[in-house]
């Protein structure tokens, strides 16, 4: 199972230029709306033709501008789960699945029944899509896709049409479905949580271009540049000035910090995830063992259902920073925060 994509496309003032490949497992395309992630997915499915480039699936050329190959979507064998699920409203669930069935007609009914059972929608077989809930529609849409026996599975914001409660259930279910499927899966999402939970590899798209790519853990721990850091959810980013081989002065925060990594000339910024601060007592400040401890001034607190956002600034600085702690943590007495040198991400602009 392998997917190779290298495409360029100009469309209504937007320019997509992206290249990535995935050997196996699930690849997530993460980006804000307008980053070109859905467009990339449509290029793979053949619903949009790139201006130039190459798309290969399992060694099969789906698109190659130089060789003038542009297979119709019907010939690509790629399953596409649409954001709105796109079940045909004039057909029952059973008809929706049956029409996609590929293979021996004699076995069609039995296979449709098996799919209905597998996605736990037997009871809904004779209903129309409009009569189904969002989660039921998603299961029916997945059953329809698998009736087609796709060689790759493309998921376009699969949870955006679901409410929060259902979303978490369906994430677990989809994770299981992807595992059972075994083929190449490409997931398009704007949610870093979804990407992290479902994917093995990650490509971050920003303004039609890849901002970072790699295994999901790698990209989250070392996004490498400011855009990728923001999209993976890094809330604290500051411009920096190198002060030593492994230290810098953060201009926005007004503190000097030590790093585990070597600070290079191209590292113009640094980021710290809001979860990575630790409360420190003032006495540890300046002591040899805890270099990255600095006095803070708390500005605001926002209570969430499970976590609390503490907004603060360093005593000598101006830039606002975020610290996320457990909901029940008492932060009223915290006058200093520390951060491990390993948790500091050095970023290019």
């Amino acid at each position, binding site marked *: 199972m392998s997917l190779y994509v290298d495409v360029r496309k100009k469309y209504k003032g937007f320019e997509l230029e992206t290249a990535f490949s995935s050997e196996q497992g699930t690849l997530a395309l993460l980006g804000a709306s307008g980053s070109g992630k859905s467009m990339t997915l*449509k290029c793979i*499915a053949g*619903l949009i033709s790139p201006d130039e480039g190459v798309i290969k699936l399992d060694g099969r050329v789906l698109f190659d501008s130089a060789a003038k190959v542009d297979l119709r979507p019907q010939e690509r064998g790629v399953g596409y789960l*649409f954001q709105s699920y796109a079940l045909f*409203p*004039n057909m029952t669930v059973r008809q929706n699945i049956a029409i996609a069935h590929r293979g021996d007609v004699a076995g069609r009914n039995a296979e449709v029944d098996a799919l209905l059972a597998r996605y736990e929608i037997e009871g809904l077989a004779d209903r129309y899509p*409009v009569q189904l809930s969002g989660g039921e529609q998603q299961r029916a849409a997945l059953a329809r896709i698998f009736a*087609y026996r796709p060689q790759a599975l493309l998921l376009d914001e699969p949870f955006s049409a679901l409410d929060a409660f259902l979303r978490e259930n369906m994430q677990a279910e989809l994770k299981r479905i992807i595992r059972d499927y075994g083929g190449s899966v490409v997931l398009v999402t704007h949610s870093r949580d979804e990407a992290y939970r479902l994917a093995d590899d990650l490509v971050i798209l920003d303004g039609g271009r890849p901002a970072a790519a790699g295994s999901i853990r790698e990209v989250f721990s070392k996004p490498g540049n400011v855009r990728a850091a923001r999209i993976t959810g890094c809330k604290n980013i500051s411009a920096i000035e190198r002060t030593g081989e492994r230290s810098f002065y953060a201009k926005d925060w007004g503190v000097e910090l030590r790093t585990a990594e070597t600070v290079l000339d191209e590292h113009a910024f640094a980021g710290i995830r809001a979860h990575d601060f630790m409360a420190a007592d003032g006495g540890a400040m300046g002591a040899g063992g805890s270099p990255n401890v600095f006095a803070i001034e708390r500005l605001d607190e926002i209570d969430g259902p499970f976590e609390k956002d503490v907004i603060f600034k360093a005593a000598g600085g101006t830039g606002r920073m975020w610290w996320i702690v457990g909901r029940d943590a008492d932060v009223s007495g915290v006058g200093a925060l520390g951060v491990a040198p390993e948790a500091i991400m050095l970023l290019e602009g």
Partner: protein
Amino acid sequence: MDITPVLLSLKTASVAILFTFVIGTVLAYQVCRMKNEHSKAVLDALLTLPLVLPPTVAGFFLLYLFGVNRPLGAFLAELGIKLVFNWEATVLAAVVISLPLMYRSARAAFEQVDPVYLEAARTIGLSERKIATKILIPLSAPGLTSGTILSFSRALGEFGATIMIAGNIAGVSRTMPLAIYSAVMGGREEEAYGYIIILVLVSFLFVWSLNVFTEARWGRYRLRTRR
């Protein structure tokens, strides 16, 4: 009251609607699929023209094309087909005049179908023909039905183009609207009233049934076809 014009009118409109439906729907489908925006606009304007032109002008063009002394008319005459001053000419006039209504309704109906359904159909391997017959046309059914009924009603009331190309020959091409004209011109107003009442009633019945029919038949899945 002579019932012949009533029967002629119904016969003309019934035959005309068969042609109008097929031609209008196919043209609308082709225009929707056209990639070139300029030729699309030109073709659309041409197909809509009979709707805005005076029917006498449309009739004049038809006469110009199909008159037996014209190249096309002469050619058809060789084949034994005559399309002027006979009953067939009333059908020709009705088709040309009612076509824009069918074409525009069908095109609007096709365009309101969310393209995501067509994309989904392509990604599960359905041929374009199957997509048209199993998805596009069923999802456009309310618009196609209303186009059919409007076109039928328009064909029933066709006057200007008919008198130009089919004449006003009693028992041959004198449809209801022409019979009304002849009756009034001849001072037989009583006779005109009869036709007028029938024409108004039949037209009303069709247009009214349109609303009832679309509601009952498609209400169940049309609720949320567009998100």
